[in-house]
């Protein structure tokens, strides 16, 4: 078992075995609150708990005052200024509903789903001009990655009794958002519509936890295309709906710009490629999954569909359209009559005891020879994940977790800004904005400082950066690329994207994973350890004399031999994974913290010298691992050599080269 798997199992064990003590905690807190209050009134002791009670009361009073002021003001002004004139809804995946007065002031801003709560987290838009609110909302969606080069679709819906006025407002908003997106170098795909909502549509929308605008768009798609149901489409994002809307000819929705494909083939093309390969037509199957993913060093579409007998899973290279993986298994429909998606959703929601959930996933799947529905939904800030038996509707497993929300807020003055952070990352990677697709740009607080967390993709790989938001310094860089050689270059076209992965079931030439999967020998290691070190140092731009190696390990992962090389230099911790056959850098990570440097006081033996000492004791063995450590304050090298079934473990005093341990073990 590999480190990665151990961590994964530990995490899932924690998730599963953690007991639910929330109920008892909350009821104990309620009792605590009561006690605090009594103690405050008694006002006898000076305990900290008492002070907390007084503070709580003060806050309560302040809140009450605010409420009164707001209430009175609101009531007096209601007749003229505070009458709702229009309703404006923004749907991306976050869905936000604004009530707007005749003077185009925002009267209320309501998040309609969990993503929207994230967007509105610390914004108070009440009383602001509509254009200011629009700017703030779109800005937050950009910051939180809901709108980006790829995710460029937004639906604007205006409801107003006066049709002409609604149309004017619609156009105004489209222009405004187009401009905001344009200034962020994003070519927006803006869908817009005016609406007079029927009660029926409203209740349908409410039942699925979506905005009436999104509901109306779905109705429009359904009018053209009968293969879907309303509920199926309700869980799709606006981008996905946009693609469906583009496929048909929806007349009720105005559309500007086009859905971003950013050099990728479209979802429809990916689906059709897979269907053609399976020799099936779209009408014969249920499409379960159709989404972009990052797999084995390239951007792919995951396409999954099933008919009565078989489930097909494809990965389609999003750049070339080539099929990189195909897998079939028994269809979830094969084991008998299934209860249907709606019944499964109902069973899950009933078990959770919640009302009006927002479904985020509803899919039929097969697991351990059993057909089940995977149902996921969000309600009241909690995300529920259910597996429902597809034959009898029983709950097979369930899991809940809070929906995390993050946002940038106060205290962010004097930061370099998102654009500068992006640029810093790009410059470091030797890429330009046109080479990459941004996956995430987020401002976060870590270790008491603001950092931009930036992710982007090229055809050759994935990059992650943490940029100090005040200084622009690079705090962390990490990349996984399919490329061989040193640092990724700016050109994405020259990268050997098709190497290193299986291709259409036939062995493709130039694969990097040709090591026999079952063998435990190191015969497929053609890059020497010193060469691997060289490659890592060269890539990091660190001189060998400045580096302190802390870990050097030859490990087998995903069917290939890799060197794990860790070292420190100039206050930065570097972690590299290098393909032991091709020398390709599979992973690089660096983390800057001057306090991290390990103490090398008293060390006179270098890692290479320690290796030579160990090697001399077992000349025919292969060095598997060596690391620099401190044991009870003594600097040591410890490591492992292997020769056939024999394993040697050693510890060498780094001050004088003496052996502290030499152990021979037979597997």
């Amino acid at each position, binding site marked *: 078992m590999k480190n990665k798997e151990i961590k994964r199992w530990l995490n899932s064990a924690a998730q599963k075995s953690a007991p639910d003590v929330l109920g008892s905690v909350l009821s104990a*807190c309620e009792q605590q609150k009561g006690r605090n209050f009594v103690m405050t009134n008694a006002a006898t002791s000076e305990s900290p708990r008492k002070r907390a009670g007084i503070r709580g009361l003060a806050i309560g009073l302040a809140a009450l005052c605010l409420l009164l002021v707001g209430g009175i003001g609101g009531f007096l002004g209601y007749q003229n200024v505070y009458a709702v004139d229009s309703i404006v809804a923004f749907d991306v995946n976050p869905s936000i509903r604004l009530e707007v007065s005749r003077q185009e002031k925002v009267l209320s801003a309501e998040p309609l789903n969990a993503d929207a709560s994230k967007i509105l987290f610390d914004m108070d838009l009440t009383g602001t001009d509509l254009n200011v609110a629009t700017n703030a909302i779109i800005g937050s969606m950009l910051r939180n990655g809901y709108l980006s080069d790829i995710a460029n679709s937004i639906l604007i819906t205006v409801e107003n009794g006066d049709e002409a006025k609604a149309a004017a407002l619609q156009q105004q908003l489209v222009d405004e958002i187009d401009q905001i997106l344009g200034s962020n170098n994003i070519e927006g795909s803006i869908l817009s519509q005016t609406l007079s909502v029927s009660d029926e549509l409203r209740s349908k929308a409410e039942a699925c936890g979506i905005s009436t605008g999104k509901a109306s768009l779905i109705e429009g798609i359904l009018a053209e295309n009968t293969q879907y149901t309303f509920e199926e489409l309700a869980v799709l994002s606006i981008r996905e709906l946009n693609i469906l809307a583009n496929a048909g000819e929806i007349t009720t929705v105005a559309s500007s710009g086009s859905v971003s494909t950013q050099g990728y083939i479209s979802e429809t093309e990916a689906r059709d490629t897979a269907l053609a390969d399976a020799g099936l037509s779209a009408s014969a199957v249920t499409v379960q999954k159709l989404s972009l*993913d990052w797999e084995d060093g390239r951007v792919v579409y995951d396409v999954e569909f099933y008919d009565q007998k078989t489930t097909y899973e494809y990965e389609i290279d999003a750049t070339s359209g080539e099929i990189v993986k195909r897998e079939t298994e028994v269809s979830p429909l094969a084991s008998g009559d299934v209860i249907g998606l709606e019944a499964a959703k109902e069973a899950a929601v009933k078990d959770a005891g919640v009302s009006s959930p927002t479904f985020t996933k509803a899919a039929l799947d097969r697991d351990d020879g059993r057909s089940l529905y995977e149902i996921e939904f969000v309600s009241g800030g909690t995300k529920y994940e259910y597996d429902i038996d597809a034959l009898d509707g029983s709950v097979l497993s369930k899991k809940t*977790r809070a929906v995390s929300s993050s946002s940038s807020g106060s205290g962010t003055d004097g930061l370099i800004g998102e654009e500068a952070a992006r640029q810093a990352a790009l410059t470091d990677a030797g890429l330009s904005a046109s080479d990459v697709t941004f996956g995430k740009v987020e401002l976060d607080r870590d270790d008491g400082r603001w950092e931009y967390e930036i992710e982007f993709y090229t055809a050759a790989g994935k990059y992650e950066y943490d940029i100090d938001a005040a200084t622009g310094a690079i705090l962390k860089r990490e990349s996984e690329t399919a490329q061989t050689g040193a640092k990724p270059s700016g050109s994405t076209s020259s990268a050997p994207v098709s190497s290193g992965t299986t291709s259409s079931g036939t062995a493709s030439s130039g694969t990097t994973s040709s090591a026999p999967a079952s063998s435990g020998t190191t015969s497929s290691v053609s890059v020497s350890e010193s060469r691997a070190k060289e490659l890592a140092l060269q890539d990091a731009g660190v001189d060998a004399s400045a580096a302190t190696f802390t870990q050097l390990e030859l490990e087998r992962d995903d069917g290939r031999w890799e060197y794990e090389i860790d070292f420190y230099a100039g206050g930065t911790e570097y972690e590299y994974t290098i393909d032991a056959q091709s020398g390709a850098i599979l992973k690089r990570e660096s983390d800057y913290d001057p306090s991290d440097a390990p103490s090398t006081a008293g060390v006179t033996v270098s890692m290479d010298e320690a290796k030579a000492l160990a090697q001399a004791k077992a000349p025919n063995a292969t060095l598997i691992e060596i690391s620099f450590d401190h*044991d009870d304050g003594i600097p040591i090298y410890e490591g492992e050599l292997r020769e056939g079934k024999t394993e040697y473990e050693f510890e060498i005093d780094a001050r004088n080269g003496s052996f502290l341990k030499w152990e021979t073990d037979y597997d």
Partner: protein
Amino acid sequence: MIFFTLSEPAAQRGPAWNEQQTERLIVSIAGGDTAALETLYHLTQAPLYAYLLSLLKNSADARDALQDTYLDVFTAAGRYRPEGHSRAWLYAIARNKAMMTHRRRKIRGEVPEEAGPEPWEDPSLCREERLVLSAALQSLSEEERQIVTLHAVSGFRFREVASFLELPLNTVLSKYHRAMKRLRRQLSEEEGV
């Protein structure tokens, strides 16, 4: 709308910690907001439980300590100073709770093993989860268990583990690597069986 599954880094080092959000929650909790406490609970409960288990090695004790931890969070939130160390604050409360359990057991002479089935006997766990949990709890020292859990499950960076446990970073790194190696070896033996 997020398209890319954020695979390895997140999965490998536990969930991301959102300092800003957490501090805001603590401020709300200080004002008596139980909904904020609920959110904090959902965000932190699983890794926090894992940490308590690493200290107590006993499900029932860890459960009690988990409950006490959140109750303490509720009463102590007003004294939290928002200086960007909310995770260490939360875990320090948990550690105190675990230490109190140890002390209580010592005074009363209780034997924790009497309290029920072993943590890895939880029927909801799959085979691999049982193997890994039992190996981690049985073959690692308490210090190693803490280091592994804090880093691999709770998502502490090594230097955060070091400062939380008041150990030199080198020690944390070497103990972590050694502990993982031991786990790897033991698990590959058991997998072979």
